[in-house]
């Protein structure tokens, strides 16, 4: 089985879907000739032609707006936004049309659009290249929000997103693009949207995370183990719709929940998860659920980046606090 980075796995997912379905188009800024600034679409134009994989004008609202017209005529657009902070000019199209078309037309016109972009910090980038705004997208009715944390999941989720008949925001953790390698099967396979995964079982507490922060949590496991903290680690993989069952049954088992989130703390996905366990399994909780998050600040520029993002040491610190909580 081939060994791939996440960039290669995503490239492979797009490649196999372009080959599999002539209604799939890939486009965005620098997506064609250059293959994307992170090379996620490298060689795809050469292989599938300029009509299938192409560069667009530098205008995000029209990139997403054009997806509406294309979808009405039965195409499956996969649109790249070059960076997380460059989606904002397209927000009007996402909120007022992409997410609403099925409802507005009483189910007659769906938007099988995949909006993919690199997200999050940790790569020493410029301002507006480190945003982690999944909570904002998850708050928009009509969208699905997907974030992989491994090359294998990235490919399977990307294929599922392209095949999904609803619009999917597909956030790619840019700091994991080349961080790890993994065996990734050739050909088509899907990871179902809406299914989380318990990656490691444990009995003291549940740690839930997603995307780039999964890697931070994984890195914390060794020191947590040395500290005799036996963690159950879950990867959301899909932000909306949330996999209630997996989350709730894990917390029912461990009685403790720590959520690790890169984005700003207030009104985030972590808050939603904590509300969920309070609603669904309050009587199982042995300590107030905790969240380790980014601050309610703008992600700092590279020199101060590490003071914003959760780190493995901070995961350990919070896990210790959660376990030491005494009623």
């Amino acid at each position, binding site marked *: 089985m081939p060994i791939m980075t996440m960039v290669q796995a995503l490239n492979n997912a797009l490649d196999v879907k372009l080959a599999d379905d002539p209604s799939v*188009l890939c486009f965005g800024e620098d997506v064609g000739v250059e293959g994307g600034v992170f090379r996620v679409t490298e060689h795809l134009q050469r292989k599938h032609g300029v*009509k299938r994989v192409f560069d*667009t*004008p530098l*205008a995000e*609202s*029209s990139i*997403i*707006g*054009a*997806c*509406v*017209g*294309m*979808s*009405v*005529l*039965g*195409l499956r*657009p996969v649109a790249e936004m070059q960076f997380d902070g460059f989606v904002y*000019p397209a927000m*009007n*199209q996402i909120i*007022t*049309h992409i997410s609403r078309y*099925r*409802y*507005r*037309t*009483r*189910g*007659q*016109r*769906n938007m099988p659009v995949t909006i993919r972009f690199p997200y999050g910090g940790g790569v020493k980038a410029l301002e507006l290249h480190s945003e982690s705004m999944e909570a904002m997208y998850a708050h928009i*009715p*009509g969208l*699905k929000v997907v974030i992989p944390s491994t090359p294998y999941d990235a490919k399977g989720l990307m294929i599922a997103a392209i095949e*999904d*008949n*609803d619009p999917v925001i597909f956030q790619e953790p840019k700091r994991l693009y080349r961080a790890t390698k993994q065996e990734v099967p050739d050909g088509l396979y899907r990871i179902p949207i*809406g299914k989380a995964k318990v990656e490691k079982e444990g009995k003291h507490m549940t740690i839930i995370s997603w995307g780039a922060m999964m890697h931070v949590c994984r890195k914390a496991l060794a020191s947590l183990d040395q500290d005799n903290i036996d963690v159950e680690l879950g990867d959301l993989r899909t932000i*909306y*719709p*949330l996999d*209630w069952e997996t989350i709730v049954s894990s917390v029912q088992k461990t009685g403790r929940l720590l959520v690790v989130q890169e984005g700003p703390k207030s009104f985030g996905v972590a808050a939603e998860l904590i509300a969920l366990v309070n609603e669904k399994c309050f009587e199982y909780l042995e300590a107030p659920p905790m969240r380790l998050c980014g601050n309610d600040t703008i992600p700092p520029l590279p020199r101060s980046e590490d003071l914003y993002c959760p780190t493995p040491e901070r995961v350990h610190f919070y896990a210790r606090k959660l376990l030491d909580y005494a009623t």
Partner: protein
Amino acid sequence: MATEVKAKKGDRVSNGKPNGASLFESFHPLSGNKLEVLDPNGKVTHPEWLPDLSDDLLVEGYKMMRFARIADLKAVNLQRQGKLYTLPVNRGQEACAVGSAMAIRKSDWLVPAFREIGAYLWHGWPLSTLYKWYLGLEAGGVLPEGVNSLPTSVPITSQLPHAAGLGHAIKYKGLDAVVMAYVGDGGTSEGDFSEGLNWAAVFACPCVFFINNNHYAISVPRESQTRAETLAQKALGFGMPGIQVDGNDLLAVYRATKEAVDYARAGNGPVLIEAVTYRLGAHTTSDDPTKYRTTDEEKLWEPRDPLLRTKKYLFEKQVWSDEKEEELVQYCTAQVVRATEEVIHLGSNPIPELFENMYESLTNSLEEQKRDLEEFLRWQGKRG
């Protein structure tokens, strides 16, 4: 405030030279020419630009304008009685909507903004569906079977990138179709005007962009939207032909749109049309135009009413009569009454409909919220 419509360079009409020169050359946006075929008295002023339009089709166009007028008046009336919600008023802009829609085929795509009742109806939308929307029902967004149209687009100009995407898909799939997309004068200031037109031009999409320049974006006059002398001139920056027409002249609107549609269909890329018209009513039923325009100005435009002008021309051509007019008004009124009766009693949506069209299948959270609402309603029902 302007109490009269001043003559500007853009107001000079059709002095182009048809001998060999194409319409787009003769009415180049920098020429200062505006296409007019009929004067406000219905006299043919520029026979060289008369469209190739059969008497039958011409009469059909006039009938549709009248139908749109009566349907619009009825809707405003019902709104005033508290039976419909806020709705846009169309009166005065019927030649723009009908003249342009007449130039496309059933297989072409209509991308409305929201003030094109004549275009919706011409292209096949049932009046009752439009009324459902005014009635505050999602069913008003249900696209009629076999009608190639997008639904009404509320966010100003956001529909133009959709038109570009439709054009893109038409080209990609090798379909024989053109996209007819509408926007207002105020809408030309939006970023999506630029992004939509630019995309269509870069990819040579078969799109016709039609600006209803009715002089006001709610209250803000056209002069406050842009320093450009005409809106048609904006075409030049995108590398596409542009043309300004008298939007109250059915023949001029049809002539320009037909040329633009043919041009786009032949694979030449998009065209921009600016139709200069006037909204005789308010922006919507919630608006009070006396705050921003004078009755003198309104009076100036009343004799330029596109229905009067077309009717005079039909009389001149001896294809119309007072009897036919009376018959038409009766017919349209009956149709409008029927559409009203069909929808006016409709209540709120059944609960499943509120939740079920958000996604292909209900998500866990929607399922729970639907259950919660039903549980509450049962509880409320029991309490009486």
